[in-house]
């Protein structure tokens, strides 16, 4: 099964980015509470089950450390480090 | 397939039923045994503990019978033929995992060398009062197979049958010995390995992604699998679907439980093993099993010497219970006496199957000593008169 990721977040100069699968989220806010750079915030937005969703509220702060991915008990979010754009010979 | 010649103790031996049972299990290909000491079954695991390191088997004495009865199932899912051995109170402790083996369709063998109960009861003396427990001991609806040997030779021969049936039907099989049969010494002839037919576990040949572990592709059983074949199986004691995933609703329950029962009940007559002697036209037929059937045979001799027409039906398969067999017997005799070392267990099945066609009497006992042939003879005379 393919991952359903929601990538509404615009590309940014940040070192990392997060992917959120909204329908899996149960709104526990672990990702927000323990994001080391405070890049994530809880929102008033809800998913179909009525859980409040987190969002990358300060995308420029995300360093892609994936602590949100480690904490998320619902497998609904994870972070990745962006590849450095200046690097030559990027993988096709 | 044939038994492994490097493990089979071919020859003529003078051994007890417990040891014969252990040798039979070895011949059947059992290479994993978990047990816990309990009289009068201990000699089985003691013999296994001596023999297994010399034939590549793995024996472990677990911390209790609850552990033993599930440890063997872990080994089955690793691909082994496995058994556990117990008596009385240990059998009670194992009931939880009889249910697990039934719902997960784990082929394995439970040996019960029966003693007098309930509770600690009579550790060193015989009984046959666990036969209903073998059938109904775990909660819920399920079917099992149970065999009752009556001699050390049968302990050898039929424990092999027990393993073969476990594989064929993917079901826990009970080997219902008793203290007398277990401790009785007798001549046991162990054939050459190439004369011993054993069931090979047939693992699925389907590829990962094309196989569901609890789907019946052909016949009545799902195809067997083991850990490490790449199928990423899930095995659960919860009611499950063909994928093995929990499915907790009435439809899934109906589908699974009906199949678990039908896969045994539809083969009752194939599974039924018995011996009959002089039933046709008899005034009385004794129905018996295990050690009591040998006593009954003597009583039948004594009765015939006195001119009474007596038949004998010796059940080897106790469960599934063959109604057809009993009904057939009932049509050829005028009355039935069920002789068993309990207060009346299999007699209930016989009465149910006979359904009032002929009178059914009980020759029971509370256990602790075998029923004397003279006592059965007296009952025969009473019923025949």
């Amino acid at each position, binding site marked *: 099964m393919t991952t359903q990721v929601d990538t509404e977040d615009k590309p940014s100069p940040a070192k990392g980015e997060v992917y959120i699968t909204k329908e899996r989220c149960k709104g526990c806010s672990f990702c927000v509470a323990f994001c080391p750079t405070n890049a994530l915030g809880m929102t008033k937005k809800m998913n179909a089950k009525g859980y409040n969703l987190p969002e990358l509220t300060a995308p420029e702060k995300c360093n892609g450390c994936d602590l949100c991915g480690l904490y998320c008990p619902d497998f609904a979010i994870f972070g990745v480090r962006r590849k450095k754009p200046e690097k030559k010979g990027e993988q096709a | 397939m044939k038994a492994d010649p490097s493990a089979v103790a071919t020859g003529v031996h003078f051994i007890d039923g417990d040891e014969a049972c252990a040798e039979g299990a070895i011949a059947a290909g059992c290479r994993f045994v978990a047990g816990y000491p309990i009289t009068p079954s201990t000699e089985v695991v003691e013999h296994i503990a001596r023999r297994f390191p010399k034939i590549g088997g793995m024996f472990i004495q677990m911390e209790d019978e609850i552990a033993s009865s599930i440890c063997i199932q872990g080994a089955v899912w690793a691909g082994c033929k496995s058994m556990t051995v117990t008596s009385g109170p240990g059998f009670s402790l194992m009931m939880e995992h009889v249910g697990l083996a039934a719902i997960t369709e784990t082929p394995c063998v439970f040996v019960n060398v029966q003693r007098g109960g309930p509770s600690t009861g009579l550790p060193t003396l015989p009984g046959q009062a666990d036969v209903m427990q073998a059938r109904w001991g775990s909660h819920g609806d399920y079917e099992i197979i149970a065999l009752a040997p009556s001699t050390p030779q049968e302990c050898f021969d039929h424990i092999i049958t027990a393993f073969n049936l476990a594989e064929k039907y993917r079901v826990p099989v009970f080997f219902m010995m008793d203290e007398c049969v277990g401790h009785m010494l007798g001549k046991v002839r162990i054939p050459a390995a190439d004369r011993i037919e054993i069931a090979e576990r047939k693992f699925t040949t389907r590829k990962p992604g094309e196989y569901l572990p609890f789907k019946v592709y052909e016949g009545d059983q799902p195809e067997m699998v083991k850990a490490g*074949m790449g199928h990423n199986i899930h095995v659960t004691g919860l009611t499950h679907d063909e994928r093995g995933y929990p499915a907790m609703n009435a439809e899934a329950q109906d589908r699974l439980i009906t199949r678990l029962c039908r896969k045994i009940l539809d083969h009752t007559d194939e599974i039924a093993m018995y011996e009959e002697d002089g039933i046709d036209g008899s005034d009385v037929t004794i129905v018996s099993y295990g050690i009591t059937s040998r006593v009954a045979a003597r009583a039948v001799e004594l009765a015939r010497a006195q001119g009474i027409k007596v038949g004998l039906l010796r059940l080897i398969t106790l469960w599934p219970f063959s109604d057809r067999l009993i009904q057939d017997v009932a049509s050829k005799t005028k009355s039935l006496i069920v002789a068993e070392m309990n207060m009346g267990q299999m007699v209930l099945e016989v009465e149910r199957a006979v359904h009032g066609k002929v009178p059914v009497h009980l020759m029971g006992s509370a256990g602790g000593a075998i029923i004397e042939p003279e006592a059965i003879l007296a009952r025969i005379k009473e019923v025949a008169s």
Partner: protein
Amino acid sequence: MTTKPVNPVEPLLRMDRIPHIWCPGCGIGTSVNCFARAIEKADIPHDKLHVVSGIGCTGRVAGYVNLDSFHTTHGRAIPFATGLALARPEAKVVVYSGDGDMFAIGGNHFIHAARRNVDLTVICVNNLTYGMTGGQVTPTTPLSAKASTMPYGNFEDTFNLPNLAEACGAVFVARWTVFHVRQLVRSMTKALQRKGFTFIEIIAPCPTLYQRRNKLGDGAATLKYYKEKSIIKNGASTAEAGLGFQSEIVVGEFVERERPTFTENYAARMKEVLGASFVPYEGPK
């Protein structure tokens, strides 16, 4: 075209069973994240890794991991795993279950498997309660904490799990909370790579049944408590690892030692006594 990255936990999961049944703020899923990363780091092929669970909320882990996995009976994951591990020595068998399952009904099995040093990695998610059945007292519920069967507060002393595991013979003993995700990944990796009976206790919230009944806030509040009140003491004496109600939590890797496993002891003894007539067990025939 760039491919979307995959959540690193997903290769371990049966995605056709997600979302799972665990409550919002439950710590079990967090432990599974760590487990997935540890498997990756330990570099164990998936066909040689099996998970066995008992019954209860943590017992459902076996149903979510995409490995050969076994959801057994209440308290009996360890003896099932013992059979599986002894009969299939080439595999790594992990027992993943909860505190009630493993230390109340299953306590006897735990102590004996540790004593025998069966080659098992035992992971206990300790949420201090029976979640699935509605919040009853377990052997780890702290003194004075309320449970549905301790409505006036628990008055029974508790097990100190690392201390118990060490006393019984475990060769590796660690405790973390679900706040300590990176440390947990490291300890799980070590445990998976080690031979013998390895034990990891993971303290986790049960917001629905433990935290709420004891007015301790939600899952996130509990993780904040873990952050504030945990003291990392690698190599600490497990005797110091007892837990009280909302007390400090000593976490770390406490025990690392060598002991021959059940299988090694078996082979050594048989070789010594039986010599050439010993035929080692080499898997099912």
